[in-house]
Structure formats: C-alpha cells, structure tokens
C-alpha cells in the first residue's frame, strides 16, 4: 500500500545538513545547558547527540563565530515570548482538559462532538467518542506550580495583557460556575488587525484553557492573545 519512491536529493541533503550541524555544535549546546542545570557535572544531558554520547572534539571546520551575548540595546534577534511547561495534570484537571480535547469543533462552541477521527494521521487508536480521559496513562501529580489548576477558577470577569512585537492585546474572560463562559479580545493594540485571530476566542471556551491553536502567518498576535488569556486566568485563580 505504501508507495516506494526514491528520496529526492534535496530531502537527503536537508537531513544530512541538520545532523552534521547538530553534531558539530553539540559541544556548544552542552556548554549552554551546563549554565542552566543545577548539577551540570553529574546530571545526564537532557538530550542525546546525533553522534552518540561522546563529545566530539572541535575540528578545524568548527569556525563558528562566538555567539554574541548581546544586551537588549543591541536588539537581540530572538526573544522568548512564551514557554509552556506542561506539568502532568491532576486527575480533576485531566478530566476537564480531556473533555475539551473531545469538544473541539470550530465555530460551534456549545457542542461537544468528537473530532472526526479520520483526519488524524498516525495516531494510536483512541475511542474519542467516549467521555473517558484521552491521555494514555494517568500521570501522578507534579508538585511544580507551572499549571494553574483549572478547577480553582473563581467566578467573575478578569482581564489580562499579552504582548508581541506587533503590539499588545488585552483579553477579558468570564468565569461562571468555575468554567470559562466567554473569552474575548477587549483591546487590540497590535499593528495588525485582531480579526486574524478572532477565531481563537471561541477556542478558549471550547477547550477551557489558554491553549489556542497556532496560526502560521499570525503567530505574533496569537501568542499575545495566549499570554493575555494566561494572565487573565492567573487572576481567576487567586
């Protein structure tokens, strides 16, 4: 059933390029990791290099320039907007998050239909029609406070701000009976219209979380909206 087609040279070249560069740079990434891990000497690295665990000695080819640790005044090219650290969820949060996983149907925020299973490639067979949790194993709760426990939202109206290089967005959410009943962009201060991300508002309600879709071509605004919702939800948990 699967087609066998010779790999185009560009495809092979792209794979080879990434692996070669990664291997050559492994020495540098280990140094970067050491800055941030608590016990750099003893701890296993968080990743395994493509060339195995042996650190490759620097070669003559490794003439990559010193990475500039530029201060903010030099306008660094890369700025972290958000890192989402997903802690293993508690059981109650897992239930509500799994309900939202089943409930995602765009433009129909009041339904809880399962998504069409045929669209998902290479997924393990999961009975999405059931109301049971979709996660594969019940994870033990993680002590870290990374994730706001969804069951602890207090009723009320909350606003939060998120930022992007195109400007800021304020989002306002309404919590009723512990659930998000509305989420909207209350102030759009971005250079580009917020109508590009208007569809994300319904996703917050559908999913009962800030985890809205990425939008290729409008990620700055979607990230700002995500940040605004996170900010608003943090106020709802206080």
């Amino acid at each position, binding site marked *: 059933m699967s087609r066998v087609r010779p790999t185009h040279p560009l495809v092979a070249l*792209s794979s080879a390029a990434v692996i070669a560069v990664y291997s050559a740079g492994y020495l540098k990434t280990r140094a970067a990791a050491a800055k941030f891990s608590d016990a750099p000497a003893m701890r296993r690295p968080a990743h395994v290099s493509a060339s195995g665990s042996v650190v490759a000695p620097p070669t003559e080819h490794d003439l990559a320039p010193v990475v500039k640790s530029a201060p903010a005044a030099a306008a660094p090219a890369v700025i972290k907007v958000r890192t989402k650290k997903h802690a293993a969820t508690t059981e109650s949060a897992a239930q509500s998050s799994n309900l939202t996983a089943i409930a995602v149907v765009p433009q129909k925020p009041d339904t809880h239909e399962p*998504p069409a299973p045929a669209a998902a490639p290479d997924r393990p067979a999961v009975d999405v029609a059931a109301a049971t949790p979709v996660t594969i*194993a019940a994870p033990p709760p993680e002590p870290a406070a990374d994730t706001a426990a969804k069951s602890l939202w207090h009723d009320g109206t909350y606003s939060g701000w998120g930022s992007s290089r195109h400007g800021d967005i304020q989002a306002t959410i309404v919590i009723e009976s512990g659930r998000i009943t509305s989420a909207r962009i209350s102030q759009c201060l971005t250079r580009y219209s917020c109508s590009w991300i208007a569809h994300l508002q319904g996703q917050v309600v559908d999913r009962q979380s800030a985890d809205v*879709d990425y939008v290729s071509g409008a990620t700055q605004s979607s990230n700002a909206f995500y940040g605004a919702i996170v900010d608003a939800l943090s106020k709802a948990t206080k």
Partner: protein
Amino acid sequence: MGTFVTIDVVGPIGAPAPSDARDAAIEQAFDWFRQVEACCSRFDPDSELRRLTRTVGEPVRVSEMLWRALEFACAIADETGGAFDPAIGGAMTARGFTRHYQTGAESPHDAATIGATFRDVHFDHTRRTVTLGRPLLLDLGAVAKGLAIDLAAHDLTPWGNFAIDAGGDLYFGGHTANGEPWRCGVRHPRRPETLAGTLLVSDRAVCTSGDYERRAPDGGPGHHLVDARTGRSADALISATVLADSAILADALATAAFVLGPSDAIALFARTGVEGMVMDEDLHVVSSPGWSDALLPHA
C-alpha cells in the same frame, strides 16, 4: 532572523519530568537560533556570512553550519533553475531591503553584486572551503530559520511532544498534552476572519511564505521574495505553505514555491515528496494530492 521564537514542551505523556531538565533543554533549543543568527545573518556585519562575503576570489574555510546552509541554499537554487537564489542580495538591496526589519541595521548596497548568482559560489568539498567568484551578497533567510528550527527540534526530540514556533514557521513533535496531533492554522492571506485551513501535524514542519509579512520599502507593491531570474517580485502567488519532515526543507521549498508560481510549485512539491498549498491573487488554491488529508475537516 529577527524572529520571536516560542517553544512549547509538553514532555512525554503520562510521565512526570523534572522541570529544570526541561528548562535546560528549552534553553539549549533557543540557543540554536542565536547561533544560526550569528552565523548566517545578512545584516550583522560580524556574522560569519558577512565575513565570508568580504573575501572575493580566495577560498575561505567556513563552519559546518555555514557550509551546510549555503550548500543547501544553492541546491535549492539549482533545483528551481535559479528562480530561488541566495545570491539575491544585490537585487533586494536595490529594491530597498537594506535594513534588518527588526533592528534597522543597514547592509551595504554594493552595485557590483547585482547580477551575481548562486553559480558564483564555489564549493571545495575536499578542503571544505567556499570561494566567491565575484562580489555578491548572500541571503540565507529562506534556509537559516528552518535550519534553526530543526536543530532545536533535535534537542527537544527526547521530550517527545513539543512545538517550536519561529514567527510562523513551525515544527511539531509528537502530540499535544491531550494526545492529539498538533493543530496549526494557516492564515488566509487576504481574509482576516478565515483560515486557509487547519493542519493536523505530528513530527513535521509547517512553513509559509506570503506577501503579507514584509512589504518593500520602496513603497511599491511586492515583498522581499524576488524571482532571481527577473529581479522582480514574484507576483503569481500570494501565499505558499509547505508541510514536510524538516523545517529547513519546508522553509526553503515554501520560498521557492512562491517565486516559481503555481504549477511549477506543485511540481516541485511532487518531486520532493512534500505536501503543500499555494494561493494566487484571485484566491484560487492549488494543493498537492495529500494536502487535504492533512487538514482538519471543515465543520
């Protein structure tokens, strides 16, 4: 690159992970973007790329990163018959794209570089040196970001489930926290209220080239994507999106597709085994045969 980068690490489903190890992996992943920028930036005068272009007619030893990025960019140029060309700096500069669109840094307008092509870049595979046959300005923008994404993805692969978003070019590893494929909407180039589609993605990259990202400073219609064969802005398409196994491939092919126009773009997708979609000025969409299978069905 001048890009905001977002990294989202879900981690293995069902297993708790110490958050500091995850933070270390994320920092490592981010670091690749800084490294790629330092190596491949057309605007930073101290980048390795700029230092290379200051030496004409003599072999220059380059880093593995610059070698691979340049080699790949030239291979894409060859595949597209020169429509996509990293040696486009001269033509871009002439149209006013001299400033880094975030930092405002200038790059020199060297008239001597106009007319240079990727064929003026000579690779010595034995000595690992690059020799520029004539003055030229190199732009690795279509390759560098994708490369950085793939390098970051390599660091995050042990974590199973993650997403990397580098200003609209993305790589998705594994699944979301809910065990589903990642969902990636593709912005409609003209209609703010709609998406051109939503992709279901796992262990693949999504890259989009479009005319809405950067406008030409000379005020004219058009953008930074130029058909190197003519020197003019590629205008047959307003958007091209590629879904591929790696971001370096998706990034380069989306850019190449944009300058090739619809039928050549679809043929390129077929030859390289990727899925893709292009949209023309009339909002007419042409896509590869497997594209619709990758989409979330419309409600």
